């Protein structure tokens, strides 16, 4: 019984170590570079972002509905 438990723990530990080794070998870049790229992406797309730039009322599909009168 205790043998089984021990070998289970072993398998779990082996998996954990394998996972950590994988994560350790992951190629990483510097935060400054990553941050610069994030910033550039934001700035490049900022003009296309309606929530940022605002949409003229005539184009805004969600403008308050105007009442229609039909006679």
């Amino acid at each position, binding site marked *: 019984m205790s043998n089984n438990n021990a*070998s289970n723990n072993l398998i779990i530990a082996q998996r954990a170590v394998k996972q950590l080794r994988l994560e*350790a070998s992951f190629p990483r870049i510097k935060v400054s570079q990553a941050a610069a790229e994030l910033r550039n992406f934001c700035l490049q797309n*900022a003009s296309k972002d309606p929530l940022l730039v605002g949409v003229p009322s005539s184009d805004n599909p969600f403008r308050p509905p105007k009442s229609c009168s039909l006679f």
Partner: protein
Amino acid sequence: MATQEVQLNETLAHLKTESETLKSKLEEERAKLHDVELHQVAEKVEGLGQFVMKTRRTLKGHGNKVLCMDWCKDKRRIVSSSQDGKVIVWDAFTTNKEHAVTMPCTWVMACAYAPSGCAVACGGLDNKCSVYPLSLDKNENLAAKKKSVAMHTNYLSACSFTNSDMQILTSSGDGTCALWDVESGQLLQSFHGHAADVLCLDLAPSETGNTFGQCIQSFETHESDINSVRYYPSGDAFASGSDDATCRLYDLRADREVAIYSKESIIFGVSSVDFSLSGRLLFGGYNDYTINVWDVLKGTRVSILFGHENRVSTLRVSPDGTAFSTGSWDHTLRV
């Protein structure tokens, strides 16, 4: 027997020390690359002006808490699911309800619109994800056409279609995520690695086929349940919202957290996060009934929105970025 045990114990101890050293090595590597903060890089960027965002539409009709919602690619339809077991498809421009389906279970925690706009998927306490094709014929009973796609051993927390109507990704309280084929209901892939319930999932913007199913990166800095994750529009980063009242931004290539969005005055957990189209704004729905809008680059709060009368449970920006919709425990959705 005894010697075997001793041997096993030794190897176990050996593995434990190796994993400890690997962990600290990882910390070191990550710290080495942490040479600057995101908001420092963003110092020269122009600040954002004052934002005036108003509720344009209020969608009423659910009989109980709204738990989840999703936009259709046509930018006007919304599907929402609620605790009362109902899944409703709305036209957000006109606030009309187009379809309504009653699920056999309550607490429908997940719903998603298919990319084609012709079907919706939903699930919750029934441990399954079901796909309902939407028919234009109002008289047709949608529930009859339902297809049960996914089966988990615990509640379904989130679901999302991949680029096509044919595959759906689900995450569950049983700690796994899985990829299913809609037509056959077959499990294509399953993703393990989480130690507890998986609460939310998101697909990278340009995902064409994640075939490995292996955990490649993991991030642990939140202090409590992470309720929501959303990919940054460029696919290189993602944001998370948690019960610890913070939203954090993680960069995938730098393999670490790069920003925290929090304020001392905010003590309630974040239930849901989403980015604006350019990624400059991060919207967070909070359990204190408000929505906080953060400047992603500078790390400051741009705006706080009020309107809901109970906690905001779900939040999504529309596909073209012209609006965002929130669902709340006050039984309504607001656009």
